[in-house]
């Protein structure tokens, strides 16, 4: 049983079905990549896991999503769920506050007020996202003064600050330059020691480089999933093979 499991997950936007009978098992302390052409449900699936889809009125979900064996709707409060399953978005979205306050935001929301503890958390999170050296002397300055790549690492640190167990990353490097992208990819190996990472990416090479497991999405279904080397070098389904070899997508 994986740390996250979905059973016959269906998702509808109004009358349009965006996810069809998804059955996926996400292994703990692994990096799992979700690949596939644009618009086929990868991000929608990702957002289901931390109930971000709740924000959209027209969404209807059937089937089950389990986190550590428990149903994320029935057994969890969405606030607590999101503390344990964090998310990094495609475009860096730091709050218009200082770097320190950005990272302390999450812990403060969840009740931590002690300055010493917050200082610790800020340092630990920035180190965890490889931003500490660049940021430690400007913690009180506005986060909006950082470069794009730095801002994204700030967003990762911000997510780490609430001490989640799972990290959901929705195309985290697609808006960044190659060097920043590389820095973040290097992070993945470190991150998976402590966290479970699920990353949506439309960059196949990236998926091949950093992930242990891969799931291939096509028009709302999971065509194939398994170890990354298997998917890339010995795909079972012809559609997977076509996508991997670049015949479409």
């Amino acid at each position, binding site marked *: 049983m994986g740390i996250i499991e979905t059973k016959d997950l269906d998702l509808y936007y109004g009358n349009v079905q965006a996810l069809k009978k998804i059955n996926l098992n996400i292994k703990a302390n692994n990096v799992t990549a979700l690949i596939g052409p644009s618009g086929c449900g990868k991000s929608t699936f990702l957002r289901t896991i*931390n109930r*971000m889809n709740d*924000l959209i*009125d027209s969404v209807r979900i059937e089937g089950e999503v389990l986190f550590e064996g428990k149903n994320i709707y029935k057994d969890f409060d969405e*606030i*607590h*769920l*999101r*503390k344990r399953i*964090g*998310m990094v*978005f495609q*475009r860096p*979205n*730091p*709050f*218009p506050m200082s770097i320190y306050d950005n990272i302390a*935001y*999450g812990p403060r*929301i*969840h009740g931590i007020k002690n300055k010493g503890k917050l200082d610790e958390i800020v340092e630990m999170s920035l180190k965890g996202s490889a931003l500490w050296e660049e940021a430690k002397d*400007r913690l009180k*300055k*506005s986060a*909006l*003064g950082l470069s794009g790549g730095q801002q994204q690492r700030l*967003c990762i640190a*911000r*997510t780490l600050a*609430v001490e989640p167990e799972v990290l959901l990353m929705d195309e985290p490097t697609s808006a960044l330059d190659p060097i920043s992208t590389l820095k973040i990819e290097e992070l993945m190996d470190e991150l998976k020691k402590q966290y479970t990472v699920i990353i949506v990416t439309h960059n196949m090479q990236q998926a091949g480089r950093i992930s242990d497991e891969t799931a291939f999405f096509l028009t709302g279904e999971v065509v194939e999933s398994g170890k990354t080397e298997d998917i890339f070098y010995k795909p079972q389904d012809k559609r997977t093979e076509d996508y991997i070899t670049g015949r479409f997508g």
Partner: protein
Amino acid sequence: MSSKSKDKIATIVLYILSLLVVFLLVSFIGYILYKGSSSLNFKFIFGNPKSSEAGGGIGPMFFNSFYLLIVTLILTVPLGVGAGIYLAEYAKEGKVMNIIRLCIDTMSSLPSIVVGLFGLLVFVQLSKWGYSLIAGALAITILNLSSLTRVSENAIRAASSGVKEASVGLGATQWQTIWKVILPTAMPQILTGVILSSGRIFGEAAALIFTAGSSTSILHFNELSLIGKHSAFSLFRPTETLAVYIWKVNSEGMLPDATKVANGASAVLILMVLIFNFSARIIGRRIHRSFTGSK
């Protein structure tokens, strides 16, 4: 006439018209300031008015205008910002939202005298408060509510995109997100709107004649009660403001130096409006700069 020459003539005419309009504005303001300049002294601005002799000042009315402004803002800002939050973040598209928008349109197009008369009916007579500052403040709140709501709603929508997901993703509730991230970001825009409203409130008269009244007693500043009839800070006393005074002086015609007084009072009024306008621009620019990435 060739189309090219028509084009040239039209362009010249438009330039002239625009220049004329700007000139008109400058001369309005210049005229008032010039005519009233002789009255811009301490004795006039802070002195007490006379009822039928020359030499009176506008002290109490000046104070009244400010005090009324403050009380009105205390009422209007929480209401307007709250309604803006509701429309931007909580209301669902549909009947209720459409009705609220219709109400906002309606309120914003009410003639100010009609609002004043409503105030007369409800805040003066029904409530038995008589002509009072609180009645005036409530009436002006009605006048300004729709514009402040609109400004707040727009500011909140703009501030919300992008950061809302990040905040919710970290486990914050919607309200926490609004209070800790969105509102602070929207503040400059809302503040600018509040300052601009202040300019309008300061100059408002039609809605006040029948609510705050067109008379004022001698003010005692040493009494601090909010209720007594003679305390300067009382909410329940008639409160003639500067703008109303200008109108009264002109329509009653009992002062021999009515023209001088009206000019002086108008000059003070226009100066205050100018100050409000410029402050709004400057503050808006400053805060915006400090927010968007100072290294």
